[in-house]
């Protein structure tokens, strides 16, 4: 298993300790609110509290003052973010008494409550959705840190989601490549606090040895290939594909 060094005894802020929401009827640019439910006395009173909102590489930081005197900024509009997708929030508690800000606690992957309806299948490892924006692409994987991967199928394919659920041709041709993309993402992103990453890597370990400890890219890719190969073997993907094609040809 990979190990994380934690020199600063950094703690993790859990999802139930912070509640994000969006202000209703605030115009085109969303404005967020946050309710802190963590024990403020567990941290140094002069530690600084920051909220970050982000989507892809766009990021906006908001200064909430000190842990002992939380002061929400007046302007909480997300006017610097790419709003084309789901917004995620992070929380950081930082010791700024020294020259450099040391992270005391952090939590990532928070989402505003009104955003939750979008992901109606949170218990599933993989969300499958239909999309009209794929052009000539039959499918596309979209993964964001802190969220589960989403497999988008072109809405121009009749009954695509149902086919993905039951059709051996769909499953055999899409799932191995999708799984590979997911595992590469989680290795690349390397966020030890991302629950989804840990779930996916644990899932992968059910098909192969434990994941490589080193960051050696060749070793990682070989391990991923082994996972994909064992995954295909366990579900007889190639045999099922061949059988289905033969049945269709008859």
């Amino acid at each position, binding site marked *: 298993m990979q190990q*994380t*060094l*934690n*020199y*600063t005894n*950094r703690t993790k802020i859990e999802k139930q300790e912070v509640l994000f929401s969006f202000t209703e009827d605030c115009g*085109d*640019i969303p404005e967020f609110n946050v309710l802190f439910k963590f024990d403020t006395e567990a941290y140094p009173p002069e530690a600084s509290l*920051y909220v*970050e909102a*982000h*989507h*892809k*590489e*766009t*990021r906006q*930081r908001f200064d909430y003052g000190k842990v002992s005197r939380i002061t929400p900024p007046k302007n909480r509009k997300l*006017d*610097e*973010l*790419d*709003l*084309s*997708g789901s917004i995620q929030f992070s929380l*950081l508690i*930082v010791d*700024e008494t020294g*020259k*450099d*800000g*040391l*992270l005391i606690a952090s939590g990532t992957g928070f989402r505003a409550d009104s955003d939750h309806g979008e992901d109606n299948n949170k218990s599933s490892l993989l969300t499958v959705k239909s999309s*009209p*924006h794929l*052009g*000539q692409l039959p499918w*596309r*994987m*979209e*993964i*964001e*840190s802190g969220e589960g991967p989403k497999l988008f199928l072109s809405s121009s394919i009749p009954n695509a989601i149902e086919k993905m659920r039951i059709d051996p041709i769909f499953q055999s041709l899409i799932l191995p490549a999708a799984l590979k993309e997911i595992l590469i*993402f989680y290795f*690349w*992103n*390397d966020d*030890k606090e991302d629950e989804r990453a840990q779930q996916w890597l644990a899932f992968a370990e059910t098909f192969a040895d434990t994941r490589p400890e080193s*960051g050696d890219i060749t070793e990682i890719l070989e391990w991923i290939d082994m996972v994909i190969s064992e995954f295909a073997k366990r579900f007889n993907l190639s045999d099922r594909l061949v059988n289905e094609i033969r049945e269709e040809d008859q």
Partner: protein
Amino acid sequence: MKLRKLTSKGLSEFSLFLQNLRDGQDLQTPKYLLDSEEHSELIELDLEVSEASFSSRYEMGKYLAELLKEKNVHSYIGDTGFWSWFALFWFDQLCRVKSGQKSPFQDAHYILSHSFGLRQRHAVFTSWQLVDRYGDQCRFMLSKLSVRGEIAEQMMGSQYILSADGVVRLASRLYTAPGKSGFKAGAGGSGAGSPRRYVAWLGQIKLTYDYFKMTPDDLEALLPSEFSKFLKES
């Protein structure tokens, strides 16, 4: 030409054109898509875009940062049709040429992708984004035009890095060749002190430090000795 955005049909045609080029066909760039009613649409921004020639992605980003300055571009940040229109408009200079033939990279370099790790590959969107935010401090990442190069590949691989001001400014200090338009010798490699090592080091300190707020000087003080050869050349 008046700025528009490509529709999904325009994007499909653009993608097909790229695929045909990759398949070895010798084709004219389908510029008609740029103002055809079927393949593109008018947008709220009323702007004329120049057919200027650029010497680097930095120059292109600079032009765009000026063009879009003080315009309300917020809603276009993740808009595939908007940024891909620019890439098609300037495609002849953005496309790599091999043995006299256009030889494009994968679509994400010209058609803005929504996938992780691919969006930063867009030649136009990323150039604008970096120059708009960092000005000439990002020159070292955008010194080429038709290819991205190793430095951009490494620096743009992590979404957090591009949004951390001190991180980009220290990278500029490390790798920008003084008085030149490009980067220092050795910065395009993968050895000690290279951008690849810089990104790996940032991944380590991210767990301990709040580097989003750190200045380039604060970060420089923490740099391991392997980077000193690039610092000395500043």
